[in-house]
């Protein structure tokens, strides 16, 4: 006891011991987060602590945007008005046919007794800022759990699919963009209905349509829409346009590079779509191959 130093010199554990402790704790948290997604509750608590600071940091920019909107000149407004009028006229034609088509579609669906895909309530949101994580492509939007956002919801802007909600906080949520490396989206070529899966590429600006045979019928300029097979994205939303197709006989698959249609312009307004009905159409009771079907078919063959 007499050899212990006086309290004045007491400085706690050695720095290397502290570093080891905190490093191990970090690694533990990272494994929890990356492998098991167990870190969410702690993240929620910290998010609430960081929220006021985030608000303070973004407030001047929001105020600036509001002010710019308020003071936009009359000429700008008139020009915009004219543009919108023209756009409206052009859209009116589509809209009219759309109504007819929707009615027709509904009756056909009823005929098929298919489950009606009721479009639920979509949530309007604004992009606050791009995620400050250079290793992934995410944006933060200003709607969270309190507004009814759930993980897995699709997010679109006026031109196409932007991404999906991957993490929700109480007042904010994170949207992983379709160009993120870890993001995959099932798509369909509009021209011929060919299905595939588009993955975000490493560079963060393009998508890649992988696992398509090198003789697959895709061309530059083909439009890809969601096929809805994943039960997350509703069917038929524009996703990307094929920018380049490289066919090399040495490889089994073609290298197809696509450019996303959404998010190219700085759209700050986005729409969080209602969760898609979890069951794809084919699993509904009426479409399931019935027990008697095979027997009937064989009977028909026999005829």
């Amino acid at each position, binding site marked *: 006891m007499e050899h212990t130093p006086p309290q004045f010199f007491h400085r706690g554990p050695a720095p290397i011991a502290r570093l080891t402790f905190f490093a191990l704790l970090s690694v533990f948290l990272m494994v929890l987060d990356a492998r098991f997604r167990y870190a969410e509750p702690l993240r929620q608590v910290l998010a609430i602590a960081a929220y006021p600071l985030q608000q303070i940091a973004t407030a001047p920019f929001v105020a600036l945007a509001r002010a710019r909107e308020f003071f936009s000149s009359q000429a700008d407004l008139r020009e915009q008005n004219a543009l919108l009028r023209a756009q409206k006229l052009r859209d009116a034609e589509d809209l009219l046919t759309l109504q007819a088509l929707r009615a027709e579609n509904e009756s056909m669906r009823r005929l098929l007794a298919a489950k009606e895909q009721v479009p639920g309530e979509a949530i309007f949101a604004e992009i606050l800022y791009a*995620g400050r994580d250079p290793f992934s492509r995410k944006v933060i939007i200003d709607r969270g759990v309190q507004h009814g956002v759930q993980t897995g919801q699709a997010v679109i802007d006026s031109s196409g699919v932007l991404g999906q909600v991957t993490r929700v906080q109480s007042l904010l949520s994170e949207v992983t963009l379709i160009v993120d490396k870890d993001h995959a989206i099932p798509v369909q070529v509009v021209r011929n209905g060919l299905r595939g899966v588009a993955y975000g590429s490493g560079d963060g600006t393009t998508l890649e349509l992988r696992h398509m045979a090198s003789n697959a019928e895709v061309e530059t300029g083909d439009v890809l829409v969601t096929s809805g097979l994943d039960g997350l994205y509703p069917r038929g939303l524009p996703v990307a346009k094929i920018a380049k197709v490289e066919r090399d006989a040495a490889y089994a698959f073609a290298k197809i590079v696509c450019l996303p249609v959404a998010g190219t312009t700085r759209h700050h307004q986005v729409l969080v779509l209602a969760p898609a009905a979890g069951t794809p159409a084919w699993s509904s009771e009426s479409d399931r191959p019935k027990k008697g079907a095979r027997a009937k078919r064989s009977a028909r063959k026999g005829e």
Partner: protein
Amino acid sequence: MAANPQHILLPVRVSFMAASVIAALAFNLLPWQDLRGVPDLLALVLTFWCVHQPRKMGIGIAWALGLLMDTANGALFGQHALAYAALAYAAQGLHRRILGFSPWQQALHVLVLLLGSQLIMLAVRMIAGGTYPGASFFLGSVVCAALWPLASFILLAPQRRAEEVDETRPI
């Protein structure tokens, strides 16, 4: 350093340290459109206080602030925490050595420390399967280190006394 006489500084105020850290954190949370070359001011301020006040700022606080950064940025939980803890350890270990140099030479030391912490983050994210952000990822550290002399001037300002020549005063 010889041309620049050492002044005896006033004791630091913990409230000022806290305010500077919070201001740096708020800067880091600004909505940047493009992140290339944006300095991580929180790392800079942490390094500064670890070098100048190693008994008041340390690995534990740096780690906690790192966690806060991870949450706000939606990064891997613990990535910034690990990098900042290592940064604080290195800065505390080198604080006597660093303070012996002139401000620009100090900045070179700080550059190495900041690049090291970014390398840790890069390594962690590559293992976790992230996108390689390109060499411009490290540009932020260079900008940060270039800001070191300015940061030293600003953050030490409250501790300087009024420069009045008084030959009769002992200190």
